[in-house]
């Protein structure tokens, strides 16, 4: 077995200097990532009622997981999370891609337009949430006032205090906030599409649509996958906008996993239950992380 790979320990010893260089970073990661994950998983097996100190927690095995899966609010929050994540990702990507295509062409004021479109991305999520909350306000919001003034509606539109419209209203804010991210990613991807290929296709008589569909899109497959995965992960973890704008309300209509977890941990002081919930979210995220890494490392083995 002359070609057999050396064992892990032998490889570490052989490259000990390399490992020594990355050791501090690994140590920090262990402290700030691995330990909290371990502690969350550990805590998820305990009942932590609000009248007990954390040291007095009661071991209940998988009780928290059973309880979460049986909660009506979990099923409601799961559906809301699905709607929130899928639609936020879809619209942010489509809008971002559209903006990237527009900005990829030469036109007067392109730099200015690029700067303007980036504004939502650089505004603080907290500030943006408060601004949108006032724009949407059901009694004296600007959008409602305009819709009444131009005769579009008889009364101001009830964006945030309606169980029917609240989720769509929040998704609009989220898409507005994160489409520039998709735009930047796709713009970077567009700039890697070989110009000579596009010109050759043009010479061969391919129209704009055919050039886009058969040359541009295949070249963007990798960056599209990465962008969509990053948007999905960001939206699953998105907390600021829904929490500040509605706190998960009204009547739980905009409650998503992450706000529900926060509410359980800090509103209801159920750290055990919230930890179990977080572990479920963590598993879902790990699944996505797997596909993300696969997308990033595709072709590395060749």
């Amino acid at each position: 077995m002359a070609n057999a790979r050396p064992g892990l320990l032998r490889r570490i010893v052989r490259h000990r200097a390399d490992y020594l260089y990355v050791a501090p970073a690994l140590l920090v990661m262990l402290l700030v990532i691995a330990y909290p994950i371990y502690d969350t998983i550990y805590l998820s097996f305990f009942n932590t009622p609000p009248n007990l100190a954390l040291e007095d927690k009661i071991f209940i095995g998988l009780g928290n997981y059973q309880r979460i899966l049986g909660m009506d609010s979990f099923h409601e929050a799961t559906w809301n999370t699905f709607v929130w994540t899928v639609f936020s990702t879809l619209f942010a990507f489509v809008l971002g891609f559209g903006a990237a295509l527009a900005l990829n062409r030469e036109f007067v004021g392109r730099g200015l337009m690029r700067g303007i479109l980036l504004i939502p991305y650089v505004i603080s999520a907290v500030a943006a949430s408060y601004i949108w909350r006032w724009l949407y306000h059901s009694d004296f919001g600007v959008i409602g006032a305009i819709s009444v003034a131009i005769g579009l509606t008889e009364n101001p539109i009830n964006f945030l205090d309606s169980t029917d419209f609240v989720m769509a209203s929040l998704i609009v804010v989220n898409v507005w906030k994160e489409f520039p991210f998709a735009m930047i990613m796709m713009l970077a991807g567009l700039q890697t599409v070989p110009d000579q290929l596009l010109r050759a296709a043009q010479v061969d008589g391919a129209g704009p649509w055919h050039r886009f569909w058969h040359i541009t899109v295949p070249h963007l497959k990798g960056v599209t996958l990465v962008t969509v995965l990053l948007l999905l992960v960001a939206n699953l973890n998105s907390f600021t906008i829904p929490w500040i704008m509605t706190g998960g309300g009204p009547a739980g209509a905009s409650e998503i996993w992450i706000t529900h977890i926060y509410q359980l941990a800090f509103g209801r002081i159920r750290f055990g239950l919230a930890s179990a919930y977080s572990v479920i979210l963590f598993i879902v995220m790990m699944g996505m992380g797997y596909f993300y890494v696969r997308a990033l490392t595709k072709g590395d083995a060749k």
Partner: protein
Amino acid sequence: MHPNHALPVNRRSLLAGVASLAIAGAARAQGSKTGVDAATWTPEYITSIAGTAEYDTAAECAKVVPLDYRGRLTYWYWGPNQASPQIEHEIDAQFWAAFAKTYPNIQVSKLSLDYNTMLDKLRAASLGKAAPMVARLPILWGSEFAAKGMLMPFGPADVGFGDDEFWPGALKSVTWKGKKYGVPTNNETMALIWNADLFKQAGLDPEKPPATWDELVAYSKQIKDRTGKNGYGMVARVNAGNTPFRFMPQLWAYGGGALDEAEDNPTYKTIKINSPGAKAALQASVDMYIRDKSVPVSALTNTQTENQDPFIAGQLAMMISHPSEYAAMLDRAKKATGDDRKIADAVVANMRYGLIPKGSARRAVVFGGSNAHVFNADIVEGGLDVKAARAFVAFMTGPEWSTKMAWVSSNPGNIRGFRSKWMKERLDTIKFLNITTSMLPNGIPFPVLPQSAEIMNIIVPNMLQNALTKKMTVDAAADAAAKQIKDLLADL
């Protein structure tokens, strides 16, 4: 006499709620060093005793901790914010200057937090062993920290005061399993505020507020129908203290309760959130929001702060709030310009205060306020300086500063404060103060349980939202809330 000023405290009302216990307790204190006879608690009596006693704060503090004591203190509190009247900011600054003068060698590191985020931050800090030495917490929060063993046993005796210097209802809120874990700083009750001009426009008697909650519902509808303006400033946001402070008086008035906290001797074991009285209160809210559409649509996301703008703009007729609301409105009027200024000035001139309406069972208001607590040394960041903490709490809860710190929004936690010259000055300068103060005998404290914050800030507002959004019927919303409270208590 103004109809709302007349509040003869009869025997029946004295025995009606926990506030009556407070009066009975304070009455026993008659002849003690407080010199306050709370058995005759009327606006006239409150005015008559104000300014009849002199206090020397530094001398009182010196008996607890020498004034030259050298130490350090970390302190978190719910301080004045953008919605607070200017005078609260000024008094806050005066307080810190006076403490620095009294105890020049105690270094203070203070943190003023927002009410709606302070509890979460304090919980996280306590778990991370980064709690402050002293925190001034709303009456609802202390029992959770006491139950978890995070607070140091600490009561009035530790700062040189007798129990008879505080309302028994307030002392109850700092007591957990027979031990005291805090000293009351201030106690408050709210009142009903209305815009007399909007009442007049709606064809109502501008000087006569609704006497009952049923009347309030009818007034709200009449105002909306005749003027197009919102009648009552309902608040139903989840995770906001403003919601239970406005809804629980209504719930108690109809004979309901979260538990049996409105009874003479509450056990906190009987669930009353789905009682007929509680359902009647919930139905009244549903009638205003869904049937009559006479309250702001944004009630589900509003806190009381969001009621201030429409009120000063003459777009809202009634709301429940502190005496400080008058000062807040004066401030807002001063900042307005042009036509807005004229409207705001007119609203301030037409602002009236009255008692919160009665229900079929009682007149009720939340017995609110704050307490000063000292955290256990093992969870305090940088260690606990007990002497500095004692000096600070003695200074803060004495008759002078418990009166001054409660200048526009509350009442002194230390009953002796009612006899001070500062109380007299308050009564002379703050309009309607005697009305809110006279609501104290109708005050009902929230249940003294570690789960109280969850019940009041989450379960009760969720019940309201479930009914107001038609997600559930009134019966189903109340029953769902009852089940949540039952599960919560069973979790112990």
